[in-house]
């Protein structure tokens, strides 16, 4: 354990030292220095293996906790590792099922489709038809994807997390911990990783997603083949189509990119504002457009959950953006745990008003990322701590906007949100408990208007 701690510390220090010339030995401007240290950390994390690659991915979805340079650098983290030989993967499958892949599937391709730090993915075909939890049956011979956790990945990740926890305890006592709580981040990271190591969690989310979107034939996710799945092996439907990185090919094939951009954005809002559970790791590789004009969500490794109360408050914050209402944004952000000290309220409200008025792009569409990320920096400038989850959601919405704009550059995600949030808040007005709570004040206000 001690030797692994030394390896971690020395790898990080060596990669930071390698960036000293780029940072002009500490004499460069602050953004240049931050970019150099971020690059060094990213390279060290890639070198240190799966646990650190995942830690980097977690940092990349937390712009509320880390600098822009570090978030951008971690976003470019490569989670592609050399594939393991087929024998190693076959032995995991045999350990899980007691038989080899040739007895489980009609065909099993030894050539991997992809190889990442935690799992490797192979193509196979079903030996027998299967009726999934939701959706139509998969026939015998259907193409499937078999995701297999790399042997030793769980043990090495758990070992590294234990070491990193000790190091986080040490960092917590230094001034590096001013902006974030390293121990809390490590705990959140450990929980996320444990979920990712048990592939059944991802499978269940996919089932739930299919159920949530049962009335929407344009939004799909892979169906799971449960008899051929365990904690370390997940068998799911093979999705045909184009990743968003291959969008030109999709356009050439006649896919309705504008329709899918609007629909994909609406589907994400439905996940957040209606169901309170959402895909929190959306990037162009996790979204497919298919030849029959549907949008497929893949890889539910990192997901976000909201309580009904959080969901309503977040809808109110989104409505505040739609209707440029700074007071509404302040009121409901407070309910989400964004506590602005009384002496800063006016300054934050003024900054927020400026942000709300400045979200329009030259083409007349509105820019959510400008507002969302600007709001997070504004809070940071005023020393306001941002609750866990709030930053993750804002980043996710900004990513959805980026993804939708990759499909159709003129899309206005704020305009897409308008009917959604208005309808939800309008429906909430009829809630009997709310009516009972608000009616006396409404009557008093009406009388005030009539009598003065």
């Amino acid at each position: 354990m001690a030797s692994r701690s030394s390896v971690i510390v020395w790898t990080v220090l060596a990669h930071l030292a390698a960036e000293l010339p780029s940072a002009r030995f500490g004499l460069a401007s602050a953004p240049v220095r931050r970019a150099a240290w971020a690059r060094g950390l990213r390279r060290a994390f890639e070198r240190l293996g799966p646990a650190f690659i995942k830690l980097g991915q977690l940092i990349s979805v937390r712009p509320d906790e880390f600098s822009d340079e570090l978030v951008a650098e971690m976003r470019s983290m490569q989670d592609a590792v050399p594939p393991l030989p087929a024998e190693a993967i076959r032995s995991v499958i045999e350990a899980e099922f007691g038989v080899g892949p040739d007895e489980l599937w009609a065909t099993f391709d030894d050539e991997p489709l992809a190889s990442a730090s935690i799992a490797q993915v192979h193509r196979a075909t079903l030996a027998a038809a299967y009726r999934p939890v939701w959706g139509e049956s998969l026939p015998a011979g259907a193409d499937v994807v078999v995701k297999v956790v790399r042997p030793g990945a769980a043990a090495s990740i758990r070992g590294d997390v234990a070491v990193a926890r000790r190091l986080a305890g040490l960092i917590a006592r230094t001034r590096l911990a001013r902006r974030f709580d390293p121990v809390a981040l490590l705990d959140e990271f450990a929980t996320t990783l444990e979920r990712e190591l048990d592939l059944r969690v991802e499978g269940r989310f996919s089932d739930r997603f299919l159920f949530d979107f049962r009335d929407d034939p344009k939004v799909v996710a892979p169906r799971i083949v449960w008899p051929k799945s365990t904690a370390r092996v997940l068998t799911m439907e093979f999705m045909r189509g184009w990743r968003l990185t291959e969008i030109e090919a999709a356009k050439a094939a006649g896919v309705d990119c504008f329709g899918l951009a609007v629909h994909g954005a609406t589907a994400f809002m439905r996940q957040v504002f209606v169901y309170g559970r959402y895909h929190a790791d959306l990037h162009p590789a996790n979204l497919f457009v298919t030849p029959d004009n549907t949008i497929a969500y893949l890889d539910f490794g990192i997901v976000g959950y909201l309580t009904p109360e959080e969901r309503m408050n977040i809808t109110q914050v989104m409505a505040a953006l739609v209707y440029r209402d700074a007071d509404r944004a302040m009121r409901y952000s407070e309910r989400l745990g964004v506590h602005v000290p009384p002496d800063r309220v006016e300054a934050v409200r003024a900054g927020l008003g400026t942000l709300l008025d400045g979200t329009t792009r030259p083409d007349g569409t509105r820019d959510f990322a400008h507002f969302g990320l600007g709001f997070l920096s504004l809070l940071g400038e005023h020393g306001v701590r941002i609750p866990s989850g709030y930053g993750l959601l804002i980043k996710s919405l900004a990513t959805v906007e980026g993804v939708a704009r990759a499909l159709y550059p003129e899309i206005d995600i704020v305009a897409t949100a308008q009917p959604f949030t208005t309808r939800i808040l309008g429906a909430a007005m009829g809630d009997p408990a709310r009516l009972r709570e608000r009616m006396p004040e409404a009557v008093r206000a009406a009388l005030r208007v009539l009598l003065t």
Partner: protein
Amino acid sequence: MTDDVMRFFAAWMLTHEVADEGLKAAVLRGDEGGAEGMSGGADAFVDGLAAMVAEEKEKLKRDLEARARGEEVAIEQPRDPALEEVRFEVAELRGRLDNIESLLETLLRKLDR
């Protein structure tokens, strides 16, 4: 007495007229400008909501006119969400049982060796 009744109805009519004009103005603001064309702030939400309610009203009007002409109007009957949730939970349970069955078979295979 007659005068009082007339005044009462006149006041009632005037109230309706003013409320109706206010609502129409809100619908127009919400409809024409979208969020961008509105002044922003708390009232903008009311305008946006009014515009959506007006849309729903027009749809209702069209449905009623179609029905008056004797046409069939499909009324959406959403399924009972509680029942749907139960359906999903039962299906999910079946998935878990499929998974457990497969694990038990694996266990037996390993014990047989």
